[in-house]
């Protein structure tokens, strides 16, 4: 059980990086708590593999350090760190049986066969693959293959960190749920620190206690699923998490208030400092309601998504989403939109710029 600290970590694929855009991974300072379930959420292609490979030791960062429980492991080889990694596509040794696959990491480390046997049997039972042990691994279904690659990581008694690199990509939808709950269960049993990388918000939010959101090789926000949902630190997080994502509207500031066109919109609290740059209002559709008075708009589209109805409205050439319970208004109807004040935030150049109000 290790606490992982990334300190001023940067990675560039250029020999002499000069400007920030030369870095595949921008400066990262991060703590992953001991034994926690962590997720790294990011859209495709933003340096997540780079980050994972640095943690597992397959890559060396250009700058900065990685500490496991305060110990510098930046230069340590992958097999010397107590980590395991599960890849996007299941990695199994085709010619071996399931048993030999699970035993492989232990045998490579010179454990005696008795220990190997006890560990393999324990892990097989945990993963519910005991009856597959004698089979050739090549013939397994993708979800079982992925379980075996997971098992190869967990079989080592010294593993403290398990990293998952979009492990459910190749799994059938109906098995995803099963495997995901298995993961949660495993996390509770083995108490290792887990880092789960995904671009799927549902996977990240259901798995993790703490989620790190990355964009373009940069950490945008770190927080619990609730924090990310309720108070996105960046409009990107607002867009990326939630369905539909947060409404972001351009606004002007005047005398401490925000104006969308001529309409004054009340913010959750005072604005921090003196904002310079692009100012925007961010509010989640869940907190926009159709009311008797407020911002006038026209209904452009109504979609029934099951539990609630998403009403897409248009005002001044901008689109808003509002979520209402029950049937929504007709398309083309004139409505007024009310923004819940405690959930209305100001963003300057994408970053949050209001202080939380009293609620």
């Amino acid at each position: 059980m290790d606490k992982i600290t990334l300190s001023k970590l940067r990675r560039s694929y250029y020999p002499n990086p000069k400007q920030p855009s030369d870095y595949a991974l921008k400066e990262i300072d991060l703590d992953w708590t001991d034994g926690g379930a962590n997720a790294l959420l990011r859209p495709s292609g933003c340096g997540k593999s780079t980050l994972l490979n640095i943690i597992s030791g397959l890559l060396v960062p250009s700058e900065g350090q990685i500490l496991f429980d305060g110990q510098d492991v930046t230069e340590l080889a992958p097999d010397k760190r107590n980590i395991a990694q599960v890849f996007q596509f299941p990695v199994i040794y085709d010619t071996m049986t399931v048993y030999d696959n699970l035993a492989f990491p232990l045998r490579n480390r010179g454990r005696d066969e008795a220990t190997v046997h006890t560990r393999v049997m324990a892990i097989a039972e945990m993963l519910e693959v005991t009856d597959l042990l004698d089979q050739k691994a090549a013939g397994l279904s993708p979800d079982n293959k992925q379980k075996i690659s997971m098992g190869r990581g967990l079989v080592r008694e010294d593993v403290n960190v398990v990293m998952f690199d979009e492990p459910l990509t190749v799994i059938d939808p109906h098995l995803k749920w099963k495997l995901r709950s298995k993961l949660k269960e495993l996390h509770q049993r083995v108490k290792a620190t887990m880092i789960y990388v995904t671009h799927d918000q549902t996977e990240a939010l259901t798995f993790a206690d703490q989620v790190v959101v990355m964009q373009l090789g940069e950490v945008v926000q770190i927080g619990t699923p609730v924090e990310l949902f309720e108070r996105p630190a960046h409009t990107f997080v607002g867009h990326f998490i939630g369905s539909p994502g947060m409404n972001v509207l351009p606004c002007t500031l005047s005398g401490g208030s925000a104006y969308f066109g001529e309409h004054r919109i009340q913010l959750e609290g005072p604005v921090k400092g003196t904002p310079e740059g692009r100012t925007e209002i961010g509010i989640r559709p869940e907190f926009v309601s159709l009311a008797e008075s407020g911002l006038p708009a026209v209904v452009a589209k109504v979609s029934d998504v099951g539990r609630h109805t998403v009403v897409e409205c248009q005002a001044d050439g901008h689109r808003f989403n509002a979520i209402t319970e029950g049937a929504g208004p007709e398309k083309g109807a004139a409505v007024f939109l009310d923004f819940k004040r405690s959930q209305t935030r100001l963003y300057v150049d994408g970053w949050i710029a209001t202080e939380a109000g009293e609620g």
Partner: protein
Amino acid sequence: MKTDNQKAWFFVLPVLLLVAFNALIPMMTVVNYSVQETFGDNVFFWQGLDWFQQILRSDRFHAALGRQFMFTFLILIIEVPLGIAIALSMPRKGFWVPVCLVLMALPMLIPWNVVGAMWNIFTLPDIGLLGYFLNHVLGINYDMTQDPFAAWVTIVTMDVWHWTSLVVLLSYAGLVSIPDAYYQAAKIDGASNWSVFRFIQLPKMKTVLTIAILLRFMDSFNIYTEPFVLTGGGPGNSTTLLSIDLVKIALGQFDLGPAAAMSLIYFAITLLVSWLFYTLMTKDDLN
């Protein structure tokens, strides 16, 4: 109910005709010769299976067959491991990849009789680069027109030079198809280089290696042009492989009956060994 449409057979017809004219009909004439005796003038006498008996009992055939198996065995045991080793040491990406690939492909682009002629001149003791070097610089007595051992070393080396590239290119194709994640997982699992080869690279190369071995077996078992140009089967009969012997009987002695019987036996052996190879190498895949 599903109605069967038989029209598709018409589309196969051209291929059938083509195969008939370039394989089936010539082969049937061979079958025809193999059961008859002729003294020319297009007069034939029925001979039954006599030629087959005669060939199968002949010491000359046994000797040629033995040399043939020896040759194929030697080149396979050298070319396959060597080809894999070269493929493993080739770069996977970057500037040198196309350079290596072109260099590897070069020997295969040279016509077979040219390869034979090249090596013939190359190894001449007085004027050949290699022959002169061995004889006059290193002082080794090397003359493949006199010494059977030298002749064998030369034809095996020539085949290795000519065809190892095929094994290299096929193995390389198998190697580059392995995703990086396998190597990364192996590193994390603490696997040694040998384990990586044994459990990742070799299994992933297996399909292409099967094809490479089969091709090399068939080609080397039927090899004619290069050893014919290089040694002509000599000195004596020491490098007279099956195909060379066959041509001697058919065109040298004009014994069409025995030659036809021998070709059929030759063909049957090639087919049988190829089938055995293939069955053995793919039997695991069925489970």
